[in-house]
C-alpha cells in the first residue's frame, strides 16, 4: 500500500509504535550509555519520556496531525527524564511547531517538521556536543531534504530517512572521542534511530519493525560494558570475576525439546555466575557475554540449547596488570601563541602565569626592563605570535620598540597597571588571531579600575595635594586621590572612591611585601561591611613599593 499523505490517526499510530519499539530496546540502549555520564540510564530515561508522550497522544483529539504532534510534544515535555529525554522533548516540540495547523502530513511538511525540530533542539544548548542524539537529528533532517527531491511515496521516503539516521549514528564515534575510545555508538542517537524505525513500522501497519536492527550489535554492548567496568576497578586485586567470557550457540531442535529456551530464565541462571551479563538472541542463535570466575560452568549452561559457533575467554587480571609504555618526550616545538608580561614580586608572577602568561619579566616601577630585556623574553616565549603586556606606562615605549625588533609577530596591548594586565589575560584566547586578541584584550583592560597604595619618600606637591614624607598615598588609575599618615584611612577612602556599588561586582586585593595579615583582614572586613554585594578575592603578590594593589570591575 502506498501513501501520499499521513492522516492524524495514522500519525498517532506511528508515534505509539515508535514508543513501543523504544520500550522493547530500552535495556540495550542503557547498556550503550557511556556519555555524558556512564550510568546506563539513557534507554530508561528515553522510554519514560516517550511513554508519557504516547500516553498524551492516545488521549488527544485526532482531527489533525498538528493536534497529535502537539499532544506528543506536551507529553514529552511533562515526562522528560534525563538529558536524552529533555533533548527528545525539544526535538518534537520543534517538530510540532513545524506542523502548526497541518491536517495531514506529506513529504514536504515532514521535511519542514524535522528541520524545525533540529532548530528548536539546538537553540536550547550553549555548547552542543556533536556525536550525540543532536547530531543524528541534524543529519537526518538534512538528508531528508535531499531524499524529498527524489521520492514521491511517503513510505519509501521514510524508509530512506531511517537509513540516513542509521548512517549518521554510525558516524557518532568519529565526532565524540569517548565513543571511539570505548568502541560504541552514541546511546541517545541509537534511541532516536529506534524511534524513527518505530515510526516507519507504524506507517506500514506493523506491530514492531520486522527487520532485525544490525546497528545495535553485541560488540557495541560489550564494549560499553567493559568501559563501565574499567571505571570501577582501581587495582587488579579488585576484579571479582576474572574471565571475560563470550560464546555463540546455534539452537538445535532436539536439544530444545529437552531444554526449552527462555531468554529471561537463561539470563537469570547466568547471572548467578558473574556480572556484566549480556544476552542477545533470535530464533536461531543466542549470543552471551559475561565476566565469570568459572567460564566452564557458563559454557555448560549454553551448550544445553545447541552447538557452539564460537567461544572466547580472556583473563582480565592479566590484561589489567599490564603496564602502559611511557610516552616519549617531544622536542620543544614553537607554540602558536605566547604572552610576555612584566611584574614585580614572585606572587604576581605566579598569578599572571596562572592566567596564561608564558614569560613574566621581573620589573615595574623604579625598575623598568629595557627594550633588550623584553626582546629576550619574546624569544624565550618560543611562539609564532607574541602578545606583550607592559603593565606600566613607563614600559609601553620599550615594549613597542622590542616589538619592532622581533622576528615573530608581536602585538603590544598597552596595559598600564597590573589589574589591567590581569583583565587583559582573562580575555586572551590562543585560538583567536593576534589582531582579535589584541582588540579583545585592550577592550577588557579598559573595564577595570586600579587602586594602588604606596608611601611618599619626600615632601612634595602633586595634583594640588600636599604630601609629607612617610605618608601613605592612594592612587586611582595612576592619579593621587588621597594622602594620610594612617594607611588604613587612605585605603578606606580610596576604595570608597573606586567602588561603585551599583556597577562593580568584584574587588581583587593583591597584597604586597609590606602587607600584614591583620591589615588585610581589616581591609576585607571594611569592604564586606561597606559593599555587601561585592565579591572579594585576595592574592599574595609580594610586590615591593605598593603595599596593596586593588582591582575593581
Amino acid at each position, binding site marked *: 500500500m502506498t501513501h501520499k499523505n499521513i492522516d492524524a490517526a495514522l500519525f498517532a499510530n506511528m508515534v505509539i509504535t515508535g514508543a513501543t519499539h523504544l520500550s522493547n530496546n530500552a535495556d540495550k540502549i542503557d547498556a550503550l550509555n557511556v556519555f555524558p555520564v556512564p550510568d546506563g540510564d539513557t534507554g530508561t530515561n528515553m522510554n519514560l519520556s516517550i511513554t508519557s508522550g504516547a500516553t498524551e497522544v492516545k488521549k488527544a483529539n485526532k482531527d489533525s496531525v498538528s493536534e497529535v504532534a502537539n499532544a506528543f510534544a506536551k507529553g514529552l515535555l511533562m515526562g522528560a527524564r534525563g538529558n536524552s529525554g*529533555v533533548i527528545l*522533548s525539544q526535538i518534537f516540540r520543534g517538530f510540532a511547531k513545524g506542523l502548526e495547523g497541518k491536517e495531514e502530513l506529506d513529504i514536504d511538511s515532514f521535511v519542514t517538521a524535522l528541520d524545525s525540530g533540529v532548530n528548536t533542539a539546538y537553540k536550547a544548548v*550553549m555548547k552542543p556536543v556533536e556525536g550525540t542524539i543532536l547530531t543524528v537529528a541534524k543529519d537526518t533532517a538534512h538528508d531528508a531534504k535531499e531524499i524529498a527531491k527524489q521520492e514521491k511515496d511517503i513510505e519509501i521516503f521514510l524508509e530512506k530517512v531511517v537509513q540516513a539516521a542509521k548512517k549518521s549514528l554510525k558516524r557518532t564515534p568519529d565526532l565524540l572521542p569517548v565513543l571511539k575510545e570505548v568502541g560504541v555508538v552514541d546511546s541517545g542517537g541509537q534511541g532516536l534511530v529506534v524511534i524513527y524505525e518505530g515510526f516507519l513500522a507504524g506507517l506500514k501497519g506493523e506491530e514492531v519493525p520486522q527487520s532485525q536492527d544490525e546497528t545495535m550489535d553485541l560488540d557495541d554492548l560489550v564494549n560499553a560494558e567493559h568501559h563501565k567496568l574499567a571505571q570501577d576497578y582501581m587495582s587488579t586485586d579488585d576484579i571479582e570475576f576474572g574471565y571475560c567470557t563470550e560464546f555463540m550457540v546455534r539452537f538445535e531442535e532436539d536439544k530444545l525439546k529437552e531444554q526449552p529456551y527462555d531468554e529471561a530464565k537463561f539470563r537469570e541462571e547466568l547471572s548467578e555466575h558473574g556480572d556484566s551479563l549480556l544476552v542477545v538472541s533470535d530464533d536461531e542463535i543466542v549470543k552471551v557475554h559475561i565476566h565469570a570466575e568459572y567460564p566452564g560452568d557458563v559454557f555448560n549452561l549454553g551448550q544445553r540449547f545447541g552447538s557452539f559457533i564460537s567461544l572466547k575467554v580472556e583473563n582480565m587480571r592479566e590484561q589489567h596488570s599490564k603496564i602502559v609504555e611511557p610516552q616519549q618526550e617531544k622536542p620543544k616545538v614553537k607554540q602558536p601563541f605566547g604572552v610576555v608580561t612584566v611584574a614585580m614580586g614572585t606572587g604576581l608572577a605566579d598569578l599572571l602565569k596562572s592566567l596564561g602568561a608564558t614569560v613574566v619579566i621581573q620589573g615595574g616601577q623604579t625598575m623598568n626592563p629595557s627594550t633588550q630585556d623584553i626582546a629576550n623574553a619574546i624569544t624565550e616565549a618560543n611562539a609564532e605570535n607574541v602578545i606583550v603586556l607592559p603593565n606600566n606606562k613607563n614600559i609601553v615605549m620599550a615594549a613597542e620598540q622590542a616589538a619592532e625588533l622581533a622576528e615573530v609577530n608581536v602585538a603590544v596591548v598597552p596595559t598600564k597597571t597590573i589589574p589591567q594586565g590581569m583583565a587583559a589575560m582573562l580575555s586572551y584566547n590562543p585560538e583567536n588571531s593576534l589582531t582579535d586578541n589584541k582588540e579583545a584584550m585592550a577592550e577588557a583592560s579598559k573595564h577595570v579600575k586600579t587602586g594602588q597604595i604606596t608611601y611618599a619618600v619626600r615632601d612634595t606637591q602633586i595634583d594640588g595635594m600636599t604630601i609629607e614624607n612617610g605618608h601613605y598615598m592612594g592612587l586611582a588609575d595612576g592619579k593621587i586621590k588621597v594622602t594620610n599618615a594612617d594607611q588604613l584611612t587612605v585605603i578606606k577612602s580610596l576604595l570608597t572612591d573606586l567602588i561603585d556599588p551599583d556597577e562593580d*561586582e*568584584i574587588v581583587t586585593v593583591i597584597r604586597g611585601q609590606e602587607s600584614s595579615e591583620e591589615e588585610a583582614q581589616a581591609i576585607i572586613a571594611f569592604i564586606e561591611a561597606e559593599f555587601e554585594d561585592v565579591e572579594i578575592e585576595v592574592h599574595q603578590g609580594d610586590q615591593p613599593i605598593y603595599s596593596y594593589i586593588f582591582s575593581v570591575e
Partner: protein
Amino acid sequence: MSIELTTADGHVTITNEVIATIAGGAAIECYGIVGMASKKQLRDGIAEILRKENFSRGVIVRQEGEAVHIDMYIIVSYGTKISEVAHNVQSQVKYNLEKTLGLKINSINIYIQGVRVIQD
C-alpha cells in the same frame, strides 16, 4: 581557599578556581543550559551571561571540614523541563569533577537565575 588531597607521594592542592572552571565547563555542555549567571543579584532583572573566564562568579565552591559543596547559578532555556535540566547538570558536573579531579562532591546546589526565551 583550596582543597588538599594527600597521596602516598605527597600533597595535591586544587584551588577553588580550578574546581569552578571545570564545573562551569561541564555545566555549559549540559543540554538546556543557555548560560552561567553571576551569583550577584541582577542589576536590572536581566541575568547577565558570563563568559568562560568568569565562571567562577557563578560557581561557588564551599568547604565544610572534609565535605565539598558547590553552588551553581545558571540560566536555562524556556520550554524545557527545568527540574530535569537542573538534575542533569547536577549529575554531569558531579561525574566530571569526580573523573577529572578524583574529588568526591557532597552536594551540588543549582540556582536558576533566569529563563531565556529564544525567538524562532
